[in-house]
């Protein structure tokens, strides 16, 4: 995949030595946790907290995740709903916490943002992309965030401008940049194509 230097590079989750483990995933990201579990030492999940946002995968992963017998298991409807819990967990975390983020770029980016704000060392966070390549986009004009963008161009859900979804990515906003695609000639309306799947 062609990428640019402002965009994060994702790896593959693997169990790390640590006192406790916080694993966060959305949708197909759950399968990255299940793959990690195959390589994990026996007592790994006794000190683990799994936070899962099923999204488009519905009921497919819950039983398998629960079968890992994590010390804590949480399921939430959205990243926004999960963030207060994450903030609480991080505020009360001790040295030796390891974090594992898996799923869409939007999930990884926002959870990473919360972790860095809480002062977690980036070296103790692993990431793995799984599932949809839908993008979280910030409109450079009105600054509104549009979630789950799958088309190029895409309409800003706030100001309604038709935006080119750039590859330029801000970790601080956990978003790609959207810039008006027909600013030069607003009568040109390029066809939307479904490309971020």
């Amino acid at each position: 995949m062609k990428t640019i230097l402002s965009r994060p590079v994702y790896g593959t989750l693997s169990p790390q030595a640590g006192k406790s483990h916080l694993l966060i995933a959305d949708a197909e990201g759950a399968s990255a946790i299940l793959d990690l579990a195959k390589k994990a030492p026996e007592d790994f999940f006794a000190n683990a907290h799994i936070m899962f946002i099923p999204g488009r995968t519905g009921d497919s992963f819950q039983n398998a995740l629960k079968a890992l017998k994590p010390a804590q298991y949480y399921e939430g409807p959205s990243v926004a709903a999960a963030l207060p819990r994450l903030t609480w967990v991080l505020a009360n975390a001790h040295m030796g916490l390891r974090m594992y983020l898996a799923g869409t770029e939007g999930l990884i980016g926002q959870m990473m943002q919360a972790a860095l704000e809480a002062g977690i060392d980036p070296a103790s966070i692993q990431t793995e992309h799984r599932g949809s390549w839908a993008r979280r986009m910030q409109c450079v004009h009105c600054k509104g965030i549009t979630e789950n963008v799958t088309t190029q161009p895409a309409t800003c859900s706030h100001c309604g401008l038709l935006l080119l979804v750039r590859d330029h990515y801000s970790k601080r906003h956990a978003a790609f940049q959207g810039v008006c695609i027909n600013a030069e000639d607003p009568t040109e309306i390029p066809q939307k194509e479904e490309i971020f799947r």
Partner: protein
Amino acid sequence: MGINFRKETFRDDFTFRNSPENIRRFPFPYHEDAYMYSVNIEPHVPGPKNSVFEHLIDVDEHYVSEMQDRAMVLAEDPLRCQSLPHMTLAGWDLLELLMTEMAKGYPEHFTLTRDGDRWRWINRPLGIDDTFTFGDVSTLPYGPMEYITRQSQGDFAILDQRDGNLWMDAGMVTTQADWSLDFDIGMNFFEWHAPVPLAHEMGVFTRALKFLTNIQQGQPARRLNWTMTINPRLDTSPENFHKWGSDRLTVTPENVGQKVHLRVELQTFFRLPRSNALVFPIRCYLLKMDELVTVPKWARRFHRVLRDLPVELAEYKGLTRYRQTTVEWLSKYDDGAPTSPGFSPE
């Protein structure tokens, strides 16, 4: 003899223009009849009289009107000026640098008096006379970076240096060539340059970073960059692109001379003493095509540069819509004669 500050606008009726003397001091950016990326950094040492390099910080006839335009941009969008919490000390460093250099270069317009930490700053063109305590934020009407950059031409990026990289952690950006401080703040050198085509593969940024992280206090450096702008608009921000983008469709063979501008950025780099940050002033100079062709060498050379520019660069710089019209207009001023090497008008 002081500078005769022009009263002019960079929006709406666009009354900006250069006096004949100011045209001669324009920092023409091509030393030969072609352009390609290069690191092209050189020591920022004081240059010839009546050039933009005469003083380390240049003030020209557009000063007062540019500061009024900046105030309008900030009133509309305060996010054009941001500073992450650890950058306040660097803001004081910048305030010291700019006040010191402006007072030294233009004593008839600016005066700085220091009595220990008690400083008095007089800015006559803008009618400012403030006394404050250096290092005490509560004694200024804005943070130190915002205070002084509301009184200094050009954009400013302050870069924190750590982990062998530079981080865009503070800035005042109201005259930018199409980049967003609000989006890029907090990024490292490679990240904020990520969208630039071709240059990464050429290793330009790796070499530039190595050079910049080694800049020492008292040894500033500079380079020129360029693009083009339709109408003398300072605020060509991505934030407002949907408002100014359509200007690019308004160029006709009849109005090239007045509408099309060469936009040159004088980028300088100073190491700051207390914070060890780097400040990166990005000063924008605009020149109308009608003004450019008053210098025959520049007219010939710019015609050749624009005509032969690689497509990717023209696209990235946003020139595609009006490049051909402008090249044809400029061709009338290119008799094919050879041009002398170097930037100078002759």
